[in-house]
């Protein structure tokens, strides 16, 4: 009824090939952005921003990074946590070595370090595939975790062994450190995530994205039609790690405010992988859905139980939350094995022909 393409005529190739071909989709996007940039800052308090939305955006960015590699190029990686760590430690080293350079520059620049490390560990991907590649990236995870503990240079020989985020400002307003308000942090994270999502969307819908998908669907065929496998796969590793690295830097600098090496362990990698699988492989929207389901849902459950006045002990709620989230993940994957993004797409398709499905 509301969501219908009748009457929308495409008069150019550009309009026909647009990412958001339907006017309703474009309006929806504007509404989402409006809510994110205007409504949320006006209505949310610290807990909502600092404990829910900032982490959600950070995880979404990491999920987009992994999705580029696993969803679009078909290379399974279990090293996401480590690549995030590379970004975080690189950003820490850079900002302590060159404190006068703007922190946003370093957050983005740390992505390049992560990308370089990602390319290095992506090299075996030409020879090995599937589960074997997962094991190779797992090696990256363990090796890098080991570095984060055993190379004191990375954390400036701190006795605590953790990286601590110093206060850095942007236009005179602190954006990192304890004095930065959640609102400033939120705006910085949101801007970076929106910009990088837009960039990723252009990548995956363009020539490079098509190359990746060709490799994913059948690499032999891709090679036969002239796609060079090694550069394509390495590019996927580089860009994926870039996104993960920036997400890691954002995570430590704008969310945690300091981190131990344990933050970037293999569980973090699995956490992001679950987001991608539940959200939908090969979908940017899916990355956001996945992050919401895996990260926000447990928080919502934890908050809802006491709000309803249920006399449950916090630890019981915690256990229940594992049960409920686990059950929901299984439910969603049974209903739609291709993830929430596919469910969303089906929903939209149904809406288009509603109320007269054929």
């Amino acid at each position: 009824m509301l969501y219908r393409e009748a009457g929308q005529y495409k008069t150019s190739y550009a309009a026909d090939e647009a990412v958001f071909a339907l006017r309703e989709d474009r309006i929806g996007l504007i509404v989402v952005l409006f809510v994110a940039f205007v409504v949320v800052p006006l209505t949310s308090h610290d807990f909502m921003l600092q404990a829910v939305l900032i982490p959600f955006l950070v995880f979404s960015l990491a999920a987009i990074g992994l999705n580029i590699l696993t969803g679009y190029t078909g290379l399974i990686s279990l090293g996401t946590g480590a690549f995030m760590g590379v970004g975080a430690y690189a950003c820490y080293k850079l900002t302590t070595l060159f404190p006068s350079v703007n922190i946003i520059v370093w957050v983005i620049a740390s992505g390049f370090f992560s990308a370089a490390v990602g390319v290095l560990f992506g090299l075996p991907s030409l020879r090995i595939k599937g589960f074997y590649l997962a094991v190779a990236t797992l090696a990256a995870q363990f090796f890098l975790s080991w570095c984060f503990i055993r190379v004191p240079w990375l954390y400036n020989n701190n006795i605590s062994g953790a990286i601590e985020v110093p206060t850095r400002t942007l236009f005179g307003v602190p954006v990192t450190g304890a004095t930065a308000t959640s609102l400033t942090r939120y705006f910085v994270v949101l801007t970076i995530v929106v910009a990088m999502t837009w960039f990723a969307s252009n990548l995956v819908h363009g020539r490079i994205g098509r190359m990746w998908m060709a490799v994913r669907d059948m690499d032999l065929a891709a090679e036969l039609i002239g796609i060079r496998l090694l550069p394509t796969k390495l590019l996927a590793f580089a860009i994926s790690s870039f996104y993960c690295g920036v997400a890691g830097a954002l995570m430590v600098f704008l969310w945690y405010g300091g981190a131990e090496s344990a933050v970037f362990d293999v569980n973090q990698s699995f956490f992001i992988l679950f987001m991608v699988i539940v959200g939908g492989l090969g979908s940017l929207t899916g990355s956001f859905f996945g992050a919401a389901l895996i990260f926000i849902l447990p928080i919502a459950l934890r908050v809802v139980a006491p709000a309803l006045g249920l006399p449950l002990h916090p630890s019981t709620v915690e256990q229940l939350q594992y049960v409920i989230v686990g059950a929901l993940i299984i439910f969603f994957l049974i209903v739609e094995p291709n993830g929430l993004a596919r469910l969303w797409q089906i929903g939209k398709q149904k809406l288009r022909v509603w109320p007269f499905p054929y």
Partner: protein
Amino acid sequence: MRLKHLLLGTALAVAAAMPASAQEGIYIPLLTYRTGAFAVSGAPIGSGMADYLNMLNERDGGIGGAKLIVEECETGYDTKKGVECYEQVKSKNPVVINPYSTGITLQIIPKAGVDKIPILSMAYGLSASADGNNFPWIFNPPATYWDGASMFVKYIGEKEGGLDKLKGKKVGLVYLDAPFGKEPIPLLESLAKDYGFELKLYPVTASEAQNQSSLWLNVRRDRPDWIYMQGFGAMNPTAVKEAIKINYPMDHFVGVWWAGGDDDARPAGPGAKGYLALSFNQTGTNFPVIQDILKYVVDKGKSQLPKDKVGETFYNRGVLNSIIIAEAIRNAQKITGKKVINGEDLRRGLETLTITAARLKELGAEGFAAPMAVSCQDHNGHNAAFMAQWDGTKWVKASDWIAPLKDKVNPLIDSASKEYVGANAGWPKRTEPCDKSS
């Protein structure tokens, strides 16, 4: 759009959850970890903390006429959830935060001064934060890990017949390969130089905590005369079992206070008899204070823990943690003259906290812990601890109170604190005035 609905739903839920705390009283949030990989120690600690405070509510109607609002937030020992908990309790005007995880402590240390909420990390967290001049909002009594390691050296010196007899001995350090585990290394290295013993390091990576056989083969080869263990969680019982397997003399094997739980020694069976661990609180229920907790809380079914666990090391440690909070609140009430205090008041209360032996007796905890004192400059006190020994079924006190080697520990604290402040450019200078100790 679904995403929007989710966000909106969460926002509504959060908004609805907030007003629940608008109650008159002193709000004490407890960050506990009753779930997750470390729940074995988290459940008794959490219950000990909650039960003592609830007992004060039941028996005395709170502290100084002010009711205590005790609320737990489950962290699962996970930094992510810890930060979430912190944000969740922050808006309810908490008087103190007990992070109960090194990772969470490190994260919220910079926030404490900004949000005006003192942090009490009882013998864990950042050792450097014992320096009150640079960390006015952080308190970590009764002792730091460096104090613990120095007590260990003092103890083995005594057993060998004098610290000078340590020359040529081999001392092993079995530690969790993480910031927490590596902490005693600088102190033990400097003591090794001073007393001429050889220090052997045996790191246990967190993922290999339950698979230590190769490490203990090395121990068997090196045959260290004494072993100190800076361990946590599943690593401890595994190490104890492995030590038994290689026939290591258990009374030469000493754990730090977080390696001295009942569930660290019990799973190893009768062979664990003799295993030593540092402790700064007594075990058992033979204290009037524990009896009161049993009477007012546990027997009424208001505790989260089965009754037979009451009195175990970690339970009593939780009780001690709450005794420190309660005494600091009382102290703050005295200084400010207010009934319902806030975080800033409690900071002053903690800073001038002295718990004398006489006061412990009044509390029904005579000999339960060493008397402790915190001051403006010294937020730790470097108080004494003792060796507890596993007798096969329970922990018993096996030594006198051992004071740490303060002259060795203090320089380390100073340099570490300077380093922390130097690394965090713009670290705020202390502006809080010092109160006279009461």
